[in-house]
């Protein structure tokens, strides 16, 4: 996405008072308990092992660390991750 479009989106969101995940292509991360993580609007898997999963997002990456990580299901706009999640970090 081009920089101008992103800025336009950001201003539109502020002006209309909308949650940012509706219009902009930013990830929306939802965590249920300690073992389930749902990421919407991801851009694909960058790295995958049972102790670490890296997801691509519009800005940077989402790094999930833990044990016995499993991708329960993966769709173009949504990914469900399960396992003992220890840490989630947003990296550039």
């Amino acid at each position, binding site marked *: 996405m081009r920089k101008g479009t992103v800025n336009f989106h950001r201003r539109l969101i502020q002006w209309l008072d909308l949650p940012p995940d509706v219009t902009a292509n930013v990830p929306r991360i939802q965590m249920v308990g300690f073992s389930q993580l749902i990421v919407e609007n991801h851009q694909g*898997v960058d790295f995958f092992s049972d102790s670490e999963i890296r997801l691509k997002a519009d800005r940077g990456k989402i790094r999930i660390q833990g044990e016995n990580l499993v991708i329960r299901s993966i769709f*173009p706009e949504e990914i469900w991750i399960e396992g003992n999640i220890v840490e989630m970090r947003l990296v550039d």
Partner: protein
Amino acid sequence: MLDFIKGKVSIELSGARITPLINEAMREEIVLGDIHFLEEERIRLTVLLPDFYRLVKMIRRTDIRMRILSKKGLPFLLSKMYKRKFFAIGILLFILLLMAMSSFVWRVEVEGNERIPEAKILTFAREAGVFPGQLKFRVPENEEIQHRLSARLPQASWVGFRMEGTRAVITVVEKEGIEEKQERSPGPVHLVARRKALIYDMRVEQGKPVVQVNDMVKKGQMLVSGVYGAEEGSGSDRIVGAKGKVWGEVWYDSQIVVPLEQKRKVYTGNRDTGYYPYVASRMLRLPFLYPVPFQEFETVERLHVLHLFNWRIPIGWVEEERLEMRWVKQRLTPQEAIRLGQERARADVREKIGPDGRILMEKVLQPRIDNGKVYMKVHFDVIENIAISQPILQGE
């Protein structure tokens, strides 16, 4: 459940650059699930069968090697069944044969009969629709067969019918013999008058008559004593019991009202049939399916329920026959009305006096017409058996 119908394939992938493959598959909208990391460059995942072939094509383009671990779901079951089609046909044939065979009556059994010959009962049962080789659903209702058999078998006091699988069982309870019957009677009796009457004739088989022909008797008066002897209570008497018939002349008066205008229902002969679904023991009256073309009608409903083996499935249909009818008004002349009333009164009296009574004379008294109705009184002079038995009380 949907996954089961579509079929699931579990596969193992090994090789470098697996992650880009996952991303590509995701972009192609192939739904991957349960992605497990086994070791470096080796993962296990599940994919739905429709997506599986697209995934295979994608894998062919890379140098990733694939191994199928398991196949689950309906398509695989079906293909397996197709491979063993003769086995499947055999199972189906077996079930069908079992259903077909169990829908016949194979044997008719009679139990409880001692004097009534079995062949006779079986003949009547055949007439009622129960015989070996009959389709089970064509056998009428148990009650109907019971009714028909007991009408044909007066020697039986009760006839029961039931189906036990493919076996029809007729249970007969025979009437007890006459010798046993007398044992049960309440001992020696006197005969007393049932109502006020003039004695017309006496037929005494046993006992001592205490009234004579042309005597007036009151209700409850003793007619025939069951005690022989000089005097009652003298000690020399002998109790034998009374038996016989005493005919008395009795008078009946019947009040009858006959309207001059008679209203009767007449079927016009037009009929129409409608069908309604019957679900869960309830009839669904859908008014638009089979509209009734008649103004005034009566309905006859017949229920058809599906049967599976012995169970009634609460699904079926109701056949409703509508018979068009009409009210017909008929004006009677006073003479006709009187005659009609007289017939009614006669039927009434005949009911009261029983089969061995007879009517000596009848007379219509005071017929008068009031408010479109004929009021009248019919006098009957009848002869009937007025004797009823009364147990002799001993040790008084």
